[in-house]
């Protein structure tokens, strides 16, 4: 039961942290619950499907199906996060010009909530499929009994969701005029970390060169197998022993998305008076 709880916790933690950031990044936006909820639901359905086809996916593309599949999911999430940040940067500038623009853009639904919903679905799908595969394996082997498995799974899931909730609550406690800056940076670092993970899968598939085995090794300070290490791995892409190509992808993603944000809307900060007056609405929703 404990082993089940730990494995489920680890996978749920990664997805929950991403959902926490997405929820904070869309705090106060009407309709976000539908998109995030829909994303979670789609992710769970997708996770069961992916676990069911695990053998077929692994055997696809001459044995590198799993790697290519993971990399595709990760890079799709990077694109969505980047798109969201760049869109927000564009409209951030408009907001400082015209006081009520944010409200309008939000109300007419032009803000790309679908991009965030998609990111949530991908995160839940990726982590969830491993959970489903693992639980199915235990059930098939008849180890521990279904009750112990259900209790372990529920405990692990609850603990993971709790960690995501703590992150979310911590973020929305940030004053609204800084929240936009903070979530923009978090989304940017999240995207860079996911890109570096995606690059690692492409190296494993032999589609990219590693460009240096282990550039450095900080596992004596923080192992990426420890819980704090795993959390930082998800949040900012922390890797104790990165390959050269992972660092290249990390920095390139930071520069590309950060550069485009700067290009279209100045530095990611200071929403206008519109957002500040929107504070009461945010609080009433939280």
């Amino acid at each position, binding site marked *: 039961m404990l*082993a089940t709880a730990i494995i489920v916790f680890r996978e749920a933690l990664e997805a929950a942290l991403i959902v926490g950031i997405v929820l904070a990044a869309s705090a106060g936006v009407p309709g976000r619950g539908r998109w995030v909820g829909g994303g979670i639901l789609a992710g769970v359905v997708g996770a069961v499907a992916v676990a069911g086809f695990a*053998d077929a996916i692994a055997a696809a593309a001459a044995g590198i199906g799993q790697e290519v599949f993971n990399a595709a999911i990760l890079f799709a999430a990077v694109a969505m996060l980047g798109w969201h940040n760049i869109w927000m940067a564009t409209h951030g500038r408009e907001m400082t010009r015209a006081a009520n623009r944010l409200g309008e853009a939000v109300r007419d639904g032009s803000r790309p909530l679908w991009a965030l919903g998609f990111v949530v679905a991908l995160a839940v799908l990726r982590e969830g499929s*491993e959970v489903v595969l693992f639980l199915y394996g*235990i059930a098939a082997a008849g180890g521990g009994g279904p009750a112990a498995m259900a209790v372990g799974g529920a405990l692990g899931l609850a603990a993971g969701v709790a960690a995501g909730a703590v992150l979310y609550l911590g973020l929305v406690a940030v004053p609204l005029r800084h929240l936009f800056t903070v979530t923009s940076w978090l989304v940017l670092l999240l995207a860079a970390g996911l890109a570096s993970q995606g690059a690692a899968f492409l190296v494993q598939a032999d589609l990219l*060169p590693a460009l240096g085995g282990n550039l450095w090794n900080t596992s004596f300070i923080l*192992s990426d197998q420890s819980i704090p290490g795993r959390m930082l791995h998800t949040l900012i892409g922390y890797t104790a022993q990165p390959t050269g*190509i992972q660092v290249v992808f990390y920095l*390139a993603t930071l520069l590309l998305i950060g550069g485009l944000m700067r290009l279209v809307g100045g530095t990611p900060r200071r929403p206008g008076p519109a957002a500040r007056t929107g504070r009461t609405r945010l609080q009433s929703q939280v």
Partner: protein
Amino acid sequence: MVRILGGAILLVSLGALAPARADAPKVALALQNHQFVPAELAIPANTKVELVISNRQQTPAEFESSSLHREKVVPPGATASVFVGPLDPGKYEFFDDFNSQTRGHLVVK
């Protein structure tokens, strides 16, 4: 700046798309009763090697290694290939992420 970087990445990716996978020597590794068999594998340094991992258990496993940068789910009864190397001499640990007591080493000489 962005364009230069994008171009550089594209070049790097294109240059690497045709590595020689087929000629890598194969090394067999099995998972049974929650143990790697053999628990220690010796491979030559500076050589690309294909680890052929057979999961002879009824439960799924995830072959993972932080120092080798590999993670691959191996469904019950299935066989998966993981390419490693070329590596510097040394000892590289790997484990089953679904059962973290299950550990083994790759010794590169």
